[in-house]
């Protein structure tokens, strides 16, 4: 009976760990594959996730096989046999486990730093396209600086959604805000770095585009930013991934990656609609 249990444990461990460990090499074309990556930094994040999966899968498998081995070995033990203990007692085992797990986490952190730090510790290039991104219940709005390259100052008290003044601009007194372009869709040129300056109008929200491998929370009162370069023309969904209220399920926008020529035409069209 004990040996049967050892075999079952081992079989379950193998059946769950093998797909996890091998997903990167064999299954990347099937449903386990992550969505298409359209950013310059995304592959580093994908690799990091893969490494983590492989490493965690191997550790899990090793631990389960070890468990199976001990069960197998002790299965025939009679109740009169003396109980064996690990030489040196539990202390050495605990220290060894701590060192092993600590090394594992540290190694993942060090390796992962290049995926994370590239997005968060490196500032955006000075010539990156700057777009202000505002989240509010329950829509995203985007603001481009317009022909003068300068953003008008937003005034929270002047926000008037019914008149489509989502950023609280004051064109009557603020010249810089007159040519600002506000849209409900995020259009960007392909292969150019984009710098999103993000703030929330009300509660916590999140900006998530899975194809960009970017997920960044909006925190009320904080100005946050992300920067990225999209490498593939297409239309992708931006969704809010932070429960923000009644209409959260419907809070989305579209990311439209365009060729430079199409982007210029789009910008011209939007400027005429302001």
């Amino acid at each position: 009976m004990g040996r049967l249990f050892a075999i079952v444990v081992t079989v379950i461990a193998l059946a769950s760990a093998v797909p996890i460990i091998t997903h990167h090499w064999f299954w990347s074309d099937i449903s386990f594959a992550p969505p298409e990556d359209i950013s310059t930094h995304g592959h580093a994040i994908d690799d990091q996730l893969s490494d983590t999966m492989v490493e965690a899968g191997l550790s899990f498998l090793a631990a389960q096989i070890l468990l199976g081995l001990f069960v197998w070995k002790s299965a025939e033990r009679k109740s009169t046999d003396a109980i064996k203990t690990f030489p040196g007692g539990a202390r050495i085992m605990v220290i060894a486990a701590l060192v092993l797990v600590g090394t594992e986490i540290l190694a993942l952190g060090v390796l992962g730093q290049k995926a994370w730090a590239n997005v968060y510790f490196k500032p955006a290039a000075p010539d990156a396209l700057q777009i202000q991104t505002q989240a509010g219940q329950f829509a995203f709005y985007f603001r481009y600086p317009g022909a003068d390259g300068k953003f008008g100052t937003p005034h929270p008290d002047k926000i008037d959604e019914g008149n489509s003044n989502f950023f609280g601009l004051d064109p009557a007194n603020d010249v810089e805000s007159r040519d600002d372009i506000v849209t409900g869709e995020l259009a960007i040129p392909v292969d150019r770095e984009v710098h999103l300056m993000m703030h929330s109008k009300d509660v916590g929200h999140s900006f998530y585009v899975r194809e960009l491998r970017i997920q960044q929370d909006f925190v009320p009162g904080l100005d946050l930013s992300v920067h990225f370069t999209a490498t593939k023309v297409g239309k992708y969904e931006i969704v809010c991934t932070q429960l923000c209220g009644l209409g959260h399920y419907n809070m989305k926008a579209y990311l439209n990656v365009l060729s430079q020529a199409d982007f210029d035409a789009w910008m011209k069209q939007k400027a005429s609609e302001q």
Partner: protein
Amino acid sequence: MRTKQLFIVASALMVSPALLFGAGTISGKVTYTGTPAKQKAIDMSKEPSCAKQHTTPVTTETVVTGPNNVLENVVVYISAGAPDESTAPTQAVTFTQKGCQYLPHVLAMRTGQELKVVNDDQTSHNIHPLAKVNREWNKSQPPGTPPLNEKFDKEEFISVKCNVHPWMHGFFAVLKTSHYSVSGENGGFSLPNLPPGKYTVTAWQEDYGTQTQDVTITGNETKTVDFSFKAKPY
């Protein structure tokens, strides 16, 4: 027999005092001077079921103008001098949400009159009249649900928004009188069935505010009253 005659006379008196005293009409046109702010295009891309209902670009409706400088959506009503009216009309007024817009943009109604809110869209709306004098309410209306029935008891101009679609905007003009008119495509309005008397006529535009004029109706006549608002460039 006598009771019956009395009844007829009494009914006539109640139904239409204008029949006895002659009925005047105040009519006119609402125009603007200057250059109104350009209305902004509304981006509905986040709600494809609404976006595809529009073949031409949808714009904000804060200031809606027509040829010859006329102004639409201006509520013109008798703000003083109208006879007291105790009962509200039994017929309901309808406010429709279609293509993620409010139809009409400005809806006038009597205090106590039934208001029917209809959702014609394939998406949920959340109608939120930002009432300050009346009781404020905020109701969700998924597609396919029956119309909401509501009413307002006090006179007020109420800004209406949708909590799901930030660009949606409209107004309820809740008035104590049934002598009101909302200027249409030609900027015209007409306030008929006015017994002789002194009246104050008020015109209300959501961005430009109000204007008033005093008018005296002496008998069966039509008085012309025009309103002209100064447009704001921004």
